[in-house]
C-alpha cells in the first residue's frame, strides 16, 4: 500500500464547492478514475481520504492537500495524478502526487493572496498601512468554546502589500494547522474598524501551506 499525498488546485467555479461537497466530489472522482484506493475495513467500508486543511467557501487555492492510500504498490505517482486529472471537475487539477513525507500536524501556516477593491485606492492603502502599524489587532473570534478576543497581529506576517488602480493587493501568512487557524477575512474585518472608506475584499486564494522554518509542507 502506498500513502499518497496529492497537491491540487481549486480554481474558477470550483471555489463554490463547499468543504462538505468537496468530500462527495472527491469520492466520485476516485470512483470515476477506477484507481485502487484503499477502503476502510470497518462495519461500513468507505474509501479513505482526508484533506489537510479546510478551505473557505469562495476561496481559490493552488495548494490543497489530500491524502489517500493506493493498494497497488507498483503504481507510479504520475499514473495516479493523470488518472485523477482525467476525471476531475472543471477548475480542479492534481498538481503533484508524491509519497506522504510529513505528518499533517507539522503544518504551521498558510499563505493567502487577496485584493481589496475600492473607489479610493490611495486612501485605502493608507488605512491598510495604519492598520498594519498597530501594535495589536484585537478581533472577536468564534471558537468551539465560545467567542474569544484574540490579537492577530503577532501571528500575521505580511508578505506584500501593494497599491493598485482599484485598491490594494495583499499577500500574508497566517497560522494554520491543527492548533490555530486564522482566516484572512479576520484582517478584512479589523481593517473596517480603521477606515470609513467602503471597499470589498475579493479574489482570496491560498497560495502556500508551510511547516516550521517556512518549509513548504509536503
Amino acid at each position, binding site marked *: 500500500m502506498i500513502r499518497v499525498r496529492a497537491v491540487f488546485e481549486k480554481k474558477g467555479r470550483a471555489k463554490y464547492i463547499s468543504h462538505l*461537497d468537496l468530500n462527495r466530489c472527491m469520492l466520485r472522482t476516485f470512483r470515476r478514475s477506477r484507481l485502487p484506493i484503499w477502503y476502510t475495513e470497518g462495519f461500513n467500508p468507505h474509501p479513505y481520504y482526508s484533506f489537510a486543511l479546510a478551505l473557505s467557501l469562495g476561496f481559490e487555492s493552488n495548494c490543497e492537500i489530500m491524502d489517500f492510500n493506493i493498494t497497488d504498490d507498483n503504481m507510479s505517482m504520475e499514473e495516479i495524478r493523470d488518472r485523477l486529472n482525467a*476525471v476531475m471537475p*472543471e477548475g480542479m487539477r492534481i498538481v503533484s502526487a508524491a509519497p506522504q513525507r510529513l505528518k499533517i500536524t507539522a503544518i504551521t501556516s498558510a499563505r493567502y493572496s487577496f485584493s481589496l477593491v475600492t473607489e479610493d485606492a490611495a486612501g485605502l492603502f493608507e488605512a491598510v498601512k495604519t492598520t498594519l502599524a498597530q501594535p495589536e489587532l484585537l478581533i472577536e473570534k468564534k471558537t468551539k468554546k465560545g467567542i474569544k478576543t484574540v490579537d492577530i497581529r503577532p501571528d500575521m506576517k505580511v508578505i506584500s502589500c501593494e497599491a493598485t488602480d482599484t485598491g490594494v493587493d495583499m499577500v500574508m501568512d497566517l497560522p494554520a494547522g491543527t492548533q490555530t487557524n486564522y482566516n484572512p477575512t479576520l484582517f478584512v474585518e479589523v481593517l473596517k474598524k480603521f477606515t470609513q472608506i467602503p471597499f470589498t475584499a475579493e479574489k482570496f486564494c491560498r497560495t502556500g501551506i508551510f511547516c516550521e522554518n517556512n518549509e513548504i509542507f509536503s
Partner: protein
Amino acid sequence: MLKDKIEKHLLEIQKPSRYIGGEVGSVIKDKSKVDVRFAFCFPDTYDIGMSHLGMKILYSLTNERENYWCERCFAPGLDFEAIMRENDIPLYALESLDPIRDFDFIGFTMQYELSYSTVLNMLDLAGIPIFAKDRTNELTQIVVAGGPCVCNPEPLADFFDLFILGEGEEVNLELMDLYWEMKQQGADRISFLRRAAQIGGVYVPQFYEFSYKEDGTIAKVTPKEGAPAVVKKRIIKNFDQVYYPENFVVPFTEIVHDRVSVEVLRGCIRGCRFCQAGFIYRPFREKSTDTICRETRCLCENTGYDEVSLASLSTSDHFDIDNMLTKLIEYTEGERINLSLPSLRVDNFSEALLEKIKRVRKSGLTFAAEGGTQRLRDVINKNVSEEEIMSTCRIAFEGGYSAVKLYFMMGLPTETDEDIVGIAELAQRIVDLFYSIENRPKGRGVQVSVSCATFVPKPFTPFQFEPQDTREEIERKQKLLLDSVKTKKIKVSYHDPNVSQLEVILAKGDRRLCQVIYAAWKKGCKFDSWSEHYHFDKWLEAFAECGVDPAFYANRRFGYDEILPWDHLDYFVTKDFLIRENKTAHQSVTTPNCRLKCSACGVSKEMGGACFDKGKSCF
C-alpha cells in the same frame, strides 16, 4: 459579462454551487457552431429539478445532436431571486450562463400542479412575456411544456406556445428540426406554430377555441388554423432500444435523488383507479435485463456515483425481476454500490426477493395500501388483500425489520367513516402481528407510520369525474383517524387539505384558470409545493377577483356526457373505458391487471396488437 455579475453575489447566498454550473457531465458547446438552443427549465429549485430523470434523458439526447444545445435552468431560491431582481440579472442557463430569453426554445417540464405559479415567476425573471399572445411574431423564444401535467394543459394554455403530449424522445427533435428548417427560411412564429401543430403529439392551444354553456361547463372546442381536432400523445414503441444517457450531470451540492437512476419499465399493468401515471404512461413496456445491466454499469462508471436506483411505477412487475436483481446485485456488490429499489408491490413481494434486498440495504419498508378496508381497496382497484399485507409484514418482521410505513388516501370515492377507522384498525393489527411473532427483532418496539394523503381526482383516470371531499369533510376525517389510533406505536401524518384542493383545481381546471394563476402569482404566489411558501389565502383572493368558483372544479361531479377540458387530447385510454371503470368502481368490483386479462382500455388498438404476448410485453 453575466458571469461576473452573478459571481459578485454568489457568496451572499445559500448553496452557491447551484447557480454557476461547471458540474462534471455538463455539456459545453461552442455557441457559434450551434443552430438551435433549448433551455430545459424545471419550475422548482436546483435540488429538486436536478433529481428529475426526464430532464437527464432529454438533455443528453438533444446534446447528442452536434448543432443543438440543450442547457439546464432552475428556479432560484428566494435569496438569489431578490439579488437577481435587484441587480438586473435575468434568468440564465447553467451551461453557457446566457440569458434564456435569447434561446430558441424555453421548455418547461410540468411534473406537479403546484409548480404552475413558479413557471410564471421564471418567465418573468427571464424577461419573457408571460402571456403567449404578448410575445413577438419573430421565430425565437418558443415557450413549450411537457410532462404528466400537460395531459390537461388548459390552466396553462395562455402562457405557452405549444405543449408536447406524451414521451419526448422523438418529438422534441422533430420540433427542433422543423424550427431550424423554418428559421433558415426566415419564417415567423405563427407560421412555425401552424406547421408544428401538424406534428403528432404537438398541441398549440391558441388554435383551439373554447365556448361555455350557461352552467359553466364546456359547450364546444373548435380547432382553427388547420390544427387537428384531436391531438394524440406520442410514445416510444421500441422501449428496449430507446435512447438512454451514458452520463448524468453530477451536482456538487446534495440533491434529493443523488444517485444513478435506471429506468426498467414504463407504464403499469395495475390500473389503480386513482393513479394518473398508471393510465397516461400506458402501454406497459419493459427493458431487457441485459439493457438494464448495461445502462447501470455505464452510468455508474461515468458518474462515479456509489448508489443506483431502479426507476419505474412498479419494479416488481418486471417479467425478469428475479434474474435482473440477481445480476444487478452481483455487479453492485462487487463495486461497493448501493442498490435501492423503490416501487415494490406488496402482493408479489417474495421471501427470496426480500432476502436479496436485505443483502443490499436495511432501510425501512413502505407499502402503499391506499385504503383502510377491503371494500374500499376494491373500489380503487388496489388489488392488495389484507392477508398479503400481513404476510409481507410477517416476512419483514421475521427478517429483522421493526418499522413499517403505510401509505393511505383519504376522501376516496364511496368512502365512509368505517373505511377511515379501518386504517387505524389495520395499523393496529400490524402492531399486534409484530408482538405475536416469536423471533421478532429484540430490544426494539414496532413502529407503524401511517401517512395519509388527501385524494386528488386526476384527468385520464376512472376517477376523473369524481368530486374531492370539501376541506371541512377532510378535516373531520383526519380527526376521526387520529381519535381511532389507540397507541403511540402508530404514528399518523397527513397532508394539508388546502394544498390538495388547489391541486385538484389546477389538475381538472380549464382555460378560465389562467387568469387565476396569473393573479395569484401577481400576489406573490410561487413554490406552492413548499409549505413555508404556500399562501392559500392569496389563492382564494385570486379566485374571488377573477370570479372563478373553486368548488366548480374541486367539489362538483363531472358528468359522463360533459365535455371535459382534456377531451380533445388523446392519451390512448378511451373515455368509454374510463366511464366503464368508474361504474365498476362504484359497484366495488375490481378489474384484473393487464397481464392477466386485457380490459380494452384502448391502448392495444393504438399499438396495433395485444400489449402482452405470453406474459411478456410486446413493446
